[in-house]
């Protein structure tokens, strides 16, 4: 009976592989939509187009959540090797936290509509670009973990690199903010947004650290 269940598993595995790929696609797309949304905000403020992007990220987050739950349920009910199963679920849940940070940050832009002075808009854009590059490298590393584990380190070092770059830009941006002639409340508000965006890169690095351990375990 166990053998028949295993044989049926091969059919379902294919569907599961597609789901995992879909999940990673949604994470990458939400990062790209975030990048565009920030670009629109910095350029034109909270426009209809910005709200459209926010809506898009929202939908991506919801469907990524549904997908993750479905993958989790399938992994548990269809008996993957428990050791790997824990790692795969851990990875998916950690990746989910990045989508959540992305969505939360965009909501904060929409609700709080921070007033970003023209002098520092480029820095905000650069910070966003670096953070999104870190997420993209993480998605590539995660895909490699499933498809070709030998390639994981090739993507992993990029996550670390872009996270460091984002930190540098964030520090510089915060120094600039606090050197500006603005009310303290405004400075604190801007710093909060810089930190929120930088947090996306930081989370990516945290997930990459975990992925590194999962990879060592698999290759061990």
């Amino acid at each position, binding site marked *: 009976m*166990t*053998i028949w269940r*295993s044989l049926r598993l091969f059919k379902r*595995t294919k569907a599961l*592989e597609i789901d995992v790929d879909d999940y990673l696609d949604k994470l990458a797309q939400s990062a790209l939509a975030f990048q565009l949304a920030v670009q629109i905000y910095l350029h034109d403020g909270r426009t209809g187009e910005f709200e459209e992007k926010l809506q898009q990220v929202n939908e991506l987050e919801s469907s990524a959540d549904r997908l993750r739950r479905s993958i989790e349920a399938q992994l548990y009910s269809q008996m993957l090797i*428990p050791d790997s199963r824990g790692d795969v679920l851990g990875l998916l849940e950690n990746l989910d936290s990045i989508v959540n940070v992305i969505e939360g940050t965009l909501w904060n832009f929409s609700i709080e509509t921070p007033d970003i002075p023209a002098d520092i808009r480029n820095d905000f854009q650069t910070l966003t670009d670096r953070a999104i590059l870190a997420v993209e490298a993480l998605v590539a590393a995660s895909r490699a973990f499933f*498809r070709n584990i*030998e390639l994981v380190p090739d993507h992993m070092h990029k996550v670390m690199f872009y996270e460091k770059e984002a930190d540098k830009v964030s520090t510089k941006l915060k120094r600039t903010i606090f050197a500006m002639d603005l009310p303290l409340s405004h400075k604190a508000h801007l710093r909060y947004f810089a930190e929120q965006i930088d947090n996306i890169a930081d989370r990516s690095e945290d997930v990459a650290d975990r992925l590194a351990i999962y990879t060592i375990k698999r*290759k061990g």
Partner: protein
Amino acid sequence: MDLTALFFLTSGLLLGWSLGANDAANVFGTAVGTRMIRFTTAAAICSCFVILGAVISGAGAAGTLGELGAIDALPGSFIVALSAAVTVYLMTKSGLPVSTTQAIVGAILGWNLFSDNPTHSGLLLKILSTWLVCPLLAAGIAILLFWLVRFYLGIAKPHLLRIDAYTRLGLILAGALGAYGLGANNIANVMGVFVPSSPFTDFTIAGAIAISSTQQLFLMGSIAIAVGVITYSERVMLTIGQGLLPLTPLAAWCAVTAHSIVLILFASRGLEHFLASRGLPTIPLVPVSSSQAVVGAVIGIGLLKGGTAIRWRTLGGIGLGWILTPLVAGVFSFIGLFFMQNVFDQPVFR
């Protein structure tokens, strides 16, 4: 068959029970230890295949033991199997690595000595050499399998989920093969000494299927192994079986498969005929240690990965077991036979 004859078989059944309790972990330890399959499923597969292996292919290795010492009186067989069982129990209690194979060979030599039966030195040497060849061969096969698996993964690059699904099925199949090998090869340890003095008689079912007295003995012995698997092996699987867990599931599959192939190689009459008919050197049909085959396979994979996994203590312990186990079993057997003959007044040889 009278009750006395049945009583004399109990020492073999005890040996079978202990074999099932201990060695099933080599076969299904990883699969159960990683909770890939439930213990009940593993125990059911293991029991079925042990019985099939013993009844279908058990005669080869048992024949070799019979040549070493054809114990022709049932009380003698009882003492020989009991000495081996007691040796295995005591050495396991003392934490020393022990193999039922080595215990039974020592006990047979004790009988040879007691009954003035000449020991075929060439055959003994052949048996002793298999103790060394078995782990080495397992290491070689495991290295080859691991290399092939790595090569396949490098070329085909299957999805991680697919690899896991294959590994899962692979471990179940390797376990079934291992259980068959264990039955085929190790039934000789359990029931081999009873073959010349078997209390059973041959019969045929519906005039078509002939069941020999040896097969009846092996069926009984393998049921004892199955009872050992069902009643006691879960604990061993969750402790000793986890010795394999530091390996990746794929490496564990290679180790279990290599172990299973080795056990079957040392029990396969078909392969012996095939090699002999082509003038090639044959593999002696000798009961070998399942645990030592696994240790050999794990060390082989360790070597391929860079050689840091060799535990010299384990190897030293195995080497010590090669000397100590037969010696202790031989002494027990000699003393036991003396008591059986002179105190209980039972013939231990003819």
